[in-house]
């Protein structure tokens, strides 16, 4: 067997240890990204017409596709709607259940339960919540004299309905992280603040929040990814309708790729999704990291 000198042997050893993880990374992340970008420059093969190089044609088609712009707009509204609300709600719930509350364990479990339910099952139940006339939401509205409304059938309310469902589902999950972080804050800090005469809100704003920044960063990144990634409820509730009012980018990609089998156009859309998520990741990590205080 070849004898390696000490330095090379260590180097080989290190790469061998990295090998399993890198193989997985390359196979399931880097290779698909590269091949997706590559595929977006070719046409979709159909019977009698094999795939051929078309340059930026797919991108031109995408720029002229009104459904694409609709879907992009929907996704940004959806993201800006769900992210701040999820984060604030999670923080509020965590602060509330952190204190001395009778039945604290029950409340924590209750807040966390939506997370453990599978999204498809949840969506099927919420489909009936939103059903006009016989659904819970309409019945509640009836108590206040508000007339029956087709919540999922009206383009102006359907996206809000999806957002409510997503927030309800995920806020409990983020609450857990905030709860853990809150319990990591030393009580001496609060005692010191009380002695100094700092108000509760002042303490929360100047001490608690900054100390929670690592968690906030984590929650922000996660909820951003979720707002682009979690589209399961669309399959059950609206299938993107009415007239693409509730379609999100990933759902549209699925429709184009597996409904229409237009793989080249789907690759093009995927490149867009990649760019958006990449840009968001870079922004979040660079900008917010500067404001994060690690202990």
């Amino acid at each position, binding site marked *: 067997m070849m004898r390696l000198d000490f330095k090379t042997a260590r180097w080989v050893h290190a790469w061998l240890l990295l090998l399993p993880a890198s193989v997985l990374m390359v196979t399931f992340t880097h290779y698909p990204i590269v091949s997706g970008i590559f595929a977006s420059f070719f046409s979709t093969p*159909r*019977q009698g017409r094999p795939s051929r190089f078309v340059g930026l044609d797919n991108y031109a088609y995408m720029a002229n596709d009104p*459904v694409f712009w609709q879907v992009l707009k929907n996704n940004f509204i959806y993201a800006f709607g769900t992210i701040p609300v999820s984060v604030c709600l999670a923080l509020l719930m965590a602060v509330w259940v952190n204190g001395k509350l009778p039945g604290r364990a029950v409340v924590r479990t209750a807040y966390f339960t939506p997370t453990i339910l599978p999204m498809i099952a949840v969506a099927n139940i919420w*489909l*009936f919540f939103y*059903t*006009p*006339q*016989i*659904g819970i939401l309409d019945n509640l509205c*009836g108590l206040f*004299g508000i*007339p*029956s409304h*087709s919540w*999922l*059938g*009206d*383009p102006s309310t359907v996206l809000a309905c999806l957002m409510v469902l997503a927030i309800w589902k995920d806020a409990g999950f983020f609450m857990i992280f905030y709860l853990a972080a809150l319990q990591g804050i030393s009580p001496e800090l609060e005692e010191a603040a009380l002695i100094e005469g700092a108000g509760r809100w002042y303490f929360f704003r100047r001490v608690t929040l900054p100390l929670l920044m690592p968690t906030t960063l984590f929650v922000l990144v996660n909820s951003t990814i979720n707002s682009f990634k979690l589209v399961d409820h669309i399959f059950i509730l*609206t*299938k993107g*309708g*009415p*007239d*693409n*009012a509730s379609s999100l980018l990933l759902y549209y990609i699925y*429709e184009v790729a*597996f*409904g*229409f*089998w*237009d793989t080249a156009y789907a690759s093009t859309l995927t490149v867009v999704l990649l760019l958006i998520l990449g840009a968001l990741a870079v922004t979040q990590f660079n900008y917010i990291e500067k404001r994060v205080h690690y202990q």
Partner: protein
Amino acid sequence: MKHGMIKVLFWLALAVCALGGTAAQAAVELNMYYPVAVGGPITKVIDDMIVEFEKANPDIKVKAVYAGNYDDTRVKALAALKASQPVQLSVLFSIDVFELMDQDVLVSFDEVATSAEDKQWLSGFYPALMENSKAKGKIWGVPFQRSTIVMYHNKDAFKEAGLDPNKPPATWEEMVAMSQKLVKKDAAGNVTRWGVQIPSTGYAYWMFQALCIQNGQVLMNLDGNKTNFDHADVVGALQFWRDLAVKHKVMPEGTVDWGTLRQKFLEGATAIMWHTTGNLTAVRDAAKFDFGVSMLPASKRRGSPTGGGNFYLFKKTTPAERMAAMKFIKFMTAPELSARWSIATGYVATSQAAYDTATLKKYVADFPAAAVARDQFPYSVAEFSVHENARVKKLLDDAIQSVLTGGKPPQEALAGAQQQAERVLKDYR
């Protein structure tokens, strides 16, 4: 000594595996996907039928996987085929025939059903149902769970409104007039019961096709490469659908959900509903009131598209698998089983022979509603089916939904859809 023992054990284990493998190959294994687009415990019925088949044919094992609705099942089947996973046959949307042909995954039944007995079996199905099974002069699908749209009406609501419960509307004008009487409002003026609801999610194009046929227009040609969405009578049909909500106020505005409409009908939130006959048994089992089923009303003529799924046989199959699959398909579509399937679901039995069985004759005599869909066959037309069907169908669905939610007027929406459909289909002419 230890090394030697390990060697022996290794070869022994290999031998056992090899023998076990060959033993398992004696039974032919069939994998299939099937959809459920109607209410009721359908998967249980299918499983029971498969158990019966396996008992009668111990050398064939069938693994049937419930794959969601028609679109989901098509996606799953095509994905499995492209990944070279073993799938020998499936129940798929009858209208996906062009898409499946274009993806080159099917083998036509003319190639496989060669004996005289087989040919007689193929010719026993209702011609109305075979329209969506044929393309380029060959038969690609065998009818299994087929339907037409029927009109369900709440007889108690009719009586309450002073209408004859046994005379459902026969024309568009009658439907509007009766629905206006059927609308019930509470003290505050909010509607508690609508007159009629036609679902516009999931399969909006199917319901729309019914309205168009009633107005004298078929939406595509039989070669699947031309559509006529912008014809004046087609626009008129969509205008009528929109008018039901906005002008006549007998239907709620916005889209009506396919999946929850049955429940709304059962809870009395609507007096009339247009829905697939495949929901018949589920409605019958759950209805706490007297209800009737009738053919759809006429405008220029009566009409409904056929609907539902066919058995398809895939190309990547060995001759043994094809024979086994044929046995299974013939079993599932035999008159007696077709009759039982129709009773369990409400789907139309697919051959006259099925309706001639004692089981179904008795059932229809007790429950005439079960024959309505079949009686509508003379007025039925092939369901919307073209090349790149999923894409073109979506263009039509989007146009319909944009009109029903007040986004666009019918002329503009349908002209836009026609233009985009042309761009897709002209390559196939």
